[in-house]
């Protein structure tokens, strides 16, 4: 059926494009490992100088940025996941007046870009809520945009749950709360994990919100730290590359281990970005 030539063509095209995807990434890793005192240029190799990472960590403040990012991401992902599970459960398995309308309001949130709400958010945070320059100013909006996707995602999952399972739990006299946590959620692990990794990636990589809300260098998240750093030291190539690797690495590590979850999530209509 399939000719050898066509198969070779398939491998070749896949290989070429994989190389295109990989080369810039490899380039920045090599750059980060170059001799900091030598003549640095993108993508060349002159030995393995891991000291760039510790310099970026200590002197260029990436340790602080990373800690801030971890804190924000942990709070956002855990709270948003919890709220999404609860809301998705109700939308998926219960009927109440106005539930359809309410759900479509959440869906609307899936398409609202940060750019549309950032201006009022800035003035509210600064003037009414007095939260500007606090972690709350990034955590709260990030949770809010995350639950739009999370609710949509968990609802889809709960609707796929076999009805008999829920009915059996009810016949046994289980409350809706018990049914959710003891009966349904143990089965929902893959769906929850997929949601959590996507929310983690979006939170970790968020830029505009932090750029607008945080002015104190000590409270910046990792991507913003990199942006500030590159504004200051455009000449220090090795350090900037090391910083870039530090910023990208946590998500890449999660991705390498859980890539099936990432891809599944991104491909099933995850419209958020």
């Amino acid at each position, binding site marked *: 059926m399939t000719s050898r030539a066509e198969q070779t063509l398939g491998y070749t095209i896949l290989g070429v494009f994989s190389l295109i995807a990989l080369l810039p990434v490899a*380039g920045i890793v090599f750059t980060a490992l170059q001799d900091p005192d030598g003549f640095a240029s993108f993508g060349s190799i002159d030995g393995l100088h891991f000291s760039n990472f510790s310099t970026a960590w200590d002197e260029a403040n990436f340790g602080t940025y990373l800690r801030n990012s971890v804190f924000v991401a942990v709070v956002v992902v855990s709270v948003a996941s919890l709220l999404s599970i609860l809301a998705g459960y109700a939308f998926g398995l219960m009927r109440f007046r106005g539930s359809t309308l309410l759900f479509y309001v959440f869906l609307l949130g899936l398409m609202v870009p940060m*750019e549309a709400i950032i201006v009022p958010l800035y003035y509210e945070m600064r003037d009414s809520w007095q939260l500007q320059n606090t972690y709350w100013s990034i955590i709260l909006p990030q949770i809010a945009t995350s639950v739009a996707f999370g609710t949509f995602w968990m609802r889809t999952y709960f609707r796929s749950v076999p009805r008999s399972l829920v009915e059996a739990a009810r016949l046994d006299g289980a409350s809706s709360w018990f049914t959710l946590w003891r009966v349904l959620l143990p089965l929902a692990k893959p769906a929850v994990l997929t949601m959590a990794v996507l929310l983690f990636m979006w939170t970790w990589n968020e830029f505009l919100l932090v750029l607008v809300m945080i002015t104190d260098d000590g409270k910046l998240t990792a991507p913003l730290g990199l942006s500030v750093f590159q504004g200051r030291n455009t000449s220090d190539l090795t350090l900037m590359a090391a910083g*870039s690797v530090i910023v990208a690495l946590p998500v890449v590590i999660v991705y390498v281990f859980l890539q099936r979850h990432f891809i599944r999530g991104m491909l099933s209509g995850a419209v958020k*970005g």
Partner: protein
Amino acid sequence: MTVAAAPLEAAETASGKGSPGERPPGEPRLVGYLYVLPAFAVFACFVLYPLAEALWYSLWEWNGLPSSPATWVGLGNYTDVFTDEELRSAFLHALILLVFYAVLPILIGLLLAGVMARAQVRGLAFFRTILFLPQVIAMVVVAVMWKMIYDPENGALNRFLGWFGIEGKSWLGDFSLALPSVGLIGTWVYFGLAMVLLTAGVQKIPPSLYDAARVDGAGPFREFLAVTLPGLRGEIAVALTLTTIYALRNFDLVYITTQGGPGDSTTVPAFQVFSRAFESSQVGSAAAVGVTLTLVIFLISFTINRVAERSS
């Protein structure tokens, strides 16, 4: 993989109405409100309320200082989208970037899907992991990385071209090269998404359709047009929706690589929102651009999914 559900879900997202029999299966339960309440409260405070406020802001002219008065301009900020030179070019650039962010990646994806339809290739999962990698790297890192590649003095691209005796260029500093150069970064980020989505779609097309086409004497090209392309409609719609929305939301890439420059040659709507609101004291106008962007995103996802629905 749940690719099968994707077009349906995306269509539902866009069209705002479920298909028949879509009612939640459960019994009526008032407790449902309690479960939805926490999520809705946060969502209402930090998305819905600001969105409504943005609509309100967009009808005024205001410089952002609490002490200075705002002037009612009605839809004036919206007509500016069509008349203001800077805004017009921002939206025009977004349109051009669509070619790089959406059309090119999908064409590359289709090329591969066409080949895959006939060749059974093993190890797809491995390639998939690599091809998807650019998606997960923070846009800031992508931008910093490509700035190094495009660097006119010492950049990898100019050095590479130098091997062939081609003179290097100032990719991001040149008025006519800057926008396509930014666009190609988008192509690099999103072609993997398109390829993975479309090759997965191809594997769901029944082999009998290909056999039938071959019996009818169709060559590889006819076969692609008659079987592969129609079979991929849903996946193409999803890929187009996703990449289009990403293209329209493109802020960090432009902010880091070019700041909209040189001149206004790479400015985009998302960048205009930021620069008008926080740099040039045109708060109302910034809000109007943000709202317009949202409307465009709505309209595009709605249209794409309607078209995909009708043709399937």
